[in-house]
């Protein structure tokens, strides 16, 4: 192996699939071989059967739909407020001086620790779930967008000035298009984190959603369903990530080599 040497597509896919296979084999050996008690870890086949049951008898597709809507809803809210604020902070230093210290502090407040408080304030309905996602995503988005916009190449800004750009022209025609790919990348990352928050929100005080199903299954010691739920979350995350990446590459072809 040579450092940084690219790998051709076929071996890359083969290697990627290989790890999944090894993972499943190890899991099968541990469960079918009787090395782990069935109560604590279901085997892969039981997991698949339980997954099938979830869809057929327990309306799991509705839970998935609810969870997706919560993530997307909270995330879009956070992005709608966070991206413009981040851009304003990155572009205008007084705005940054005003908000940055507080947001840097707020960023470290764990979103999950707000859940009990949010339940008191907003009950256990959808508002509370959206708020958890919002708190978890908003501060991250603001800070990362502000840093991105603030790091715009100064020579491009100067070039735009010498071409007669006004202050608002600099923001609209240099800072925004120049930062757009990195902002989209930030959103992709934060969407991944939003998935973690939604499950936490659903583990506590929820009556629907993937997280709620997982808590229910825990009470019934149904590890097959728990694992299936976790895998479903992983898959949805992977799909949304791919969709985001694909969209970014389409929209920002110029930023690729």
């Amino acid at each position, binding site marked *: 192996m040579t450092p940084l040497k690219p790998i051709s597509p076929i071996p890359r896919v083969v290697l990627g699939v290989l790890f999944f296979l090894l993972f499943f084999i190890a899991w099968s050996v541990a469960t079918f071989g009787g090395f782990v008690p069935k109560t604590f870890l279901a085997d892969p086949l039981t997991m698949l059967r339980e997954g099938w049951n979830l869809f057929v008898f327990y309306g799991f597709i509705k839970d998935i739909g609810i969870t997706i809507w919560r993530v997307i809803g909270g995330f879009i809210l956070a992005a709608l407020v966070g991206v413009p604020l981040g851009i304003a902070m990155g572009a205008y230093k007084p705005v940054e001086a005003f908000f940055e210290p507080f947001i840097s502090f707020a960023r470290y407040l764990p979103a999950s620790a707000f859940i009990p408080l949010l339940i008191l304030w907003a009950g256990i309905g959808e508002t509370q779930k959206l708020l958890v996602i919002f708190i978890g995503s908003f501060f991250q988005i603001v800070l990362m967008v502000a840093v991105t916009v603030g790091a715009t190449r100064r020579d491009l800004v100067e*070039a735009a000035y*010498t*071409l007669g750009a006004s202050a608002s022209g600099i923001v609209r025609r*240099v800072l925004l298009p120049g930062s757009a790919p990195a902002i989209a990348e930030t959103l992709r990352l934060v969407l991944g984190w939003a998935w973690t928050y939604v499950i936490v929100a659903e583990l506590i005080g929820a009556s629907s959603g993937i997280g709620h199903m997982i808590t229910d299954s825990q009470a019934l010691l149904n590890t097959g369903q728990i694992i299936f739920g976790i895998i479903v979350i992983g898959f949805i995350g992977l799909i949304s990530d791919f969709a985001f990446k694909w969209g970014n590459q389409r929209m*920002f072809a*110029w*930023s690729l080599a």
Partner: protein
Amino acid sequence: MSKLIIEGVGRIFPGRGDRAPTEALQPIAVTVEDNDFISILGPSGCGKSTLLRIIAGLDNPSSGRVLLDGLPVSRPGADRGMVFQSYTLFPWLTVRENIRFGLREKALPQARQDEIVAHYIAQVGLAGFEHHYPKMLSGGMQQRTAIARALANDPKILLLDEPFGALDHQTRSLMQELLLGIWESDRKTVLFVTHDIEEAIFMANRVLVMTARPGSIKSETAVDFAHPRHYTIKTSTPFARLKARLTEEIRVEALKVAAMA
């Protein structure tokens, strides 16, 4: 009336903490006439780029002022086009849209914009590359686009800060001929900063030599070769004589720089 008047422009960068302030430019006076092509030649770190940035309005002088057509310069504007040494095309815009940047800022009618863009694309020889993004272009093509982008604004003066500094020798020679050709046909007023002596002489009608830091004007030399100039004059005897003299002048300054380091 003179096009550009530099009146006692000096620049001192304030010190930070224990460090003493740095005087980058001693107060300088230069007068640029309409249609002049002036090369500013100096060793590295002599403040020639600082002077150009002050004229562009990207930096403020500590003393003195710059007058363009009699009006003092205080901020950057479309009347002073600039081409930088680093590649500063907007990577998200195609060649065409880069050249159009200043025209859109002026909100010219679309048809007029198209016409101007097409004219400069042809003039700098980029036909066929209109829809390429900067990343797909060679360094020479990027700088040609940057020149076209500055010219499209029809600035009163064109400021060039070592625009060919990052290019290989052959590309560089071709770019000099291209720029000289544009000047010979349009007679724009040009200030060209460089540390390459041959380049400074080949295109200019006046060469200003700057001293080592703090920069000041050491000498001024008229270059009288007739236009249109052919690249072969670079190997002629009068050219060589001029080059030899300027080489001596610059060498003294370069030695001072080396002694400071």
